[in-house]
């Protein structure tokens, strides 16, 4: 974890120089436009590098840095080098908003990326739209970002909860049956995810026996598991994420519940599977991106490039989120030959990612109606121990394209209002 610091330092110095330059430029007035040609194009990134989401956040940063390095080698944005300014939101909304303002007001970033935490993502989306800055939400999943609270300047790379439940629900029904029981994290992400499953259940003819709402940050799931087992469902659907997921699965396995009731869920991440002991790597899930895709072009190159920056470890979905966010901005700016936020935001509507960025078999594009990236779901099973590679902990059964999992725009509640 020392690497980002060192490069951060260089970034900092350039920032100060840039700030001084910007101050001088303000005094010189009319020459601003011409002089800016020599300065780098800045991308600001706000992510919780400390706190409970530190691991996924740091992975997103590594992915974004790789994209910046690759793009700069190819001429950057409009011939200008790209500079990535990373700020720690410390998993706190107030801090995140502050950092977004800092990046926009002081550092004059052209683009903004972030945050893993949905609450912070939405709060900084508000700042970004107030300041008219193009913003890509890399890793916050709450539906409203590309739903009822969608904004003209905000796009999202990671899935919505509806996409997650839709991708995996049919398989659960087919494999395990129709009596479902949920362990759901008690906040917006968990609620909407479970609602998504409820809609799927209705369509498929499955029934929901009950749910346990466990607060975010629960360390002991025994009370919930006792109730869940008493209901004897055909499948136990585990929806908490990150550390909560790790705690829950560990306890499920120790209680032997998985021997009686199959375990499944929606989103699963390599970060979580690697934090679990082998015996607890169980269940049917969806990955938002997976590193092992034989025959899909450019994937192995990406894996090799990330390994070099990631202490030899393979990329996770989070690396790809950061990578794709930066590339989306650079590609659309270079195509439109502009840095104007409104123009670029319009151009991103319907924008399709090229194979060297999408790194998956299906067509991947930003849907015009709600600004959601139509990215595939990798549905499959957790594997206790990787055979060829110790990090190959997931067996992909099916890659479902994004436009199959995403509900129609009319159901998202999104109405994009463009500035006059």
């Amino acid at each position, binding site marked *: *974890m020392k690497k980002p610091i060192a490069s951060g330092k260089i970034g900092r110095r350039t920032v100060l120089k840039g700030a001084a330059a910007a101050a001088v430029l303000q005094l010189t007035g009319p020459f601003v436009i011409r002089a800016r040609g020599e300065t780098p194009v800045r991308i600001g990134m706000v992510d919780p*590098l*400390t*706190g*409970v989401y*530190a*691991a996924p956040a*740091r992975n997103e940063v590594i992915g974004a840095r790789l994209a910046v390095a690759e793009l700069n080698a190819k001429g950057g944005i409009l011939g200008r080098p790209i500079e990535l300014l990373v700020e720690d939101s410390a998993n706190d909304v107030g801090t995140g908003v502050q950092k977004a303002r800092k990046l926009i007001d002081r550092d004059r970033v052209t683009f903004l990326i972030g945050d893993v935490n949905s609450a912070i993502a939405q709060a900084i989306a508000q700042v970004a739209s107030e300041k008219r800055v193009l913003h890509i939400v890399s890793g916050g999943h709450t539906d409203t970002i590309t739903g009822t609270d969608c904004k003209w300047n905000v796009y999202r790379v990671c899935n919505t909860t509806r996409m997650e439940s839709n991708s995996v629900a049919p398989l659960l029904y087919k494999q395990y049956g129709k009596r479902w029981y949920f362990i759901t994290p*008690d906040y917006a992400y968990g609620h909407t995810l479970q609602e998504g499953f409820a809609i799927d259940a209705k369509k498929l003819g499955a029934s929901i026996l009950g749910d*346990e*709402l466990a*607060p975010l*940050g629960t*360390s*002991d799931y*025994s*009370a*919930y*598991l*006792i*109730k869940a*087992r*008493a209901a004897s469902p055909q499948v136990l659907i585990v929806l908490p994420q990150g*550390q909560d997921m*790790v*705690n829950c699965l*560990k*306890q499920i*396995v*120790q*209680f*032997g*519940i998985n021997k009686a009731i199959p375990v499944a869920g929606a989103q699963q991440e390599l*970060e*979580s599977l*690697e*934090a*679990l*002991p*082998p*015996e607890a790597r169980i269940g049917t899930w969806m990955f938002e991106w997976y590193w092992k895709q034989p025959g899909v072009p450019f994937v192995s190159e990406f894996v090799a490039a990330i390994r070099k920056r990631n202490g030899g470890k393979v990329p996770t979905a989070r690396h790809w989120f950061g990578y794709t966010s930066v590339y989306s901005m650079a590609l659309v700016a270079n195509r439109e030959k502009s840095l104007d936020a409104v123009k670029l935001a319009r151009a991103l509507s319907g924008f399709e990612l090229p194979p060297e960025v999408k790194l998956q078999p299906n067509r991947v594009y930003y849907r015009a109606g709600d600004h959601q990236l139509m990215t595939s779901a990798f549905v499959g099973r957790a594997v206790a121990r990787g055979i060829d590679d110790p990090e190959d902990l997931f067996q992909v059964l099916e890659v479902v394209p994004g436009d199959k999992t995403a509900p129609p725009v009319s159901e998202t509640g999104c109405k994009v209002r463009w500035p006059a």
Partner: protein
Amino acid sequence: MTQLLLFNAINGLIIGAFYVLMALGLSLILNLSGVINFAHGGFLVLGGYLAYALTPYVGFWGALLIAPLLTAGVGFVVERLMVRRVYGRDPLYGLLLTFGLAFILEDGTRSIWGAQGLPVSIPAVLARPLSSDFFFITGYRLFMVGTVAAAVFLLFALLRYTRVGIRIRAGTLDLDTVSALGINVRGLRSLNFAAGIFLAGLSGVLAGGQLGLEPTMGTGLLMPGFVAIIVGGVGSLPGTLLGGLLIGLASGVTAVFFPSASEAVIYILMAVVLMVRPHGLLGEEGLLT
């Protein structure tokens, strides 16, 4: 319903036992040094990580003993260098000092072992339930309760029958007199602090088997420890024992009837206890007021 209630009551007591271990360490330090140790969660995490690092060399059982000892060693050094300087000052300073230490410990573990959680395996003997009806009583959880019981027994025996223990108890009641009797109070406090941190380390090793091991693991476990002390009464170790079990039971039972209050309930319990008995259930007047 009765079965569910019974299950959750037993389950709550198991969780409470863990709180007890956490709270006893806090309580030892608070009683003799007057320091509210906010870094306790940080030391807990350190214990867990040290056990993870040691397991490949000494096995689970070796790590169970060595990791807490090493954590206690770190605690001893920290006490000598920093904590002892705030003794006798407003309790505010001890609290702030350890608040700062908690920052450093969290960041330190993250820098050394990384932000991503690490997989901890427990011996196969312990990793299964005892009976299919009481599936939530696993070998590991029983072992955890047993360890807590042993630690409590050992601690109480030490405090009652050894010279150091008697001095610690005397110091809790009246440090000035103990000091006037020519007893090395400084050394006593260092030792006592290290003992408290040993218990934090032990909690960390045990927690690592059930929870995911990652740098922020201690934050959520710290507050129940404090609540246990306050409910039981500051200055009384039996009180801490009672307080820990009580809040575990309370949150376990609340989880059945009113799950969304299962966290807040321990704080409500604490506020009610203090309203009725300002010094906790078994606390004595005059201590640390």
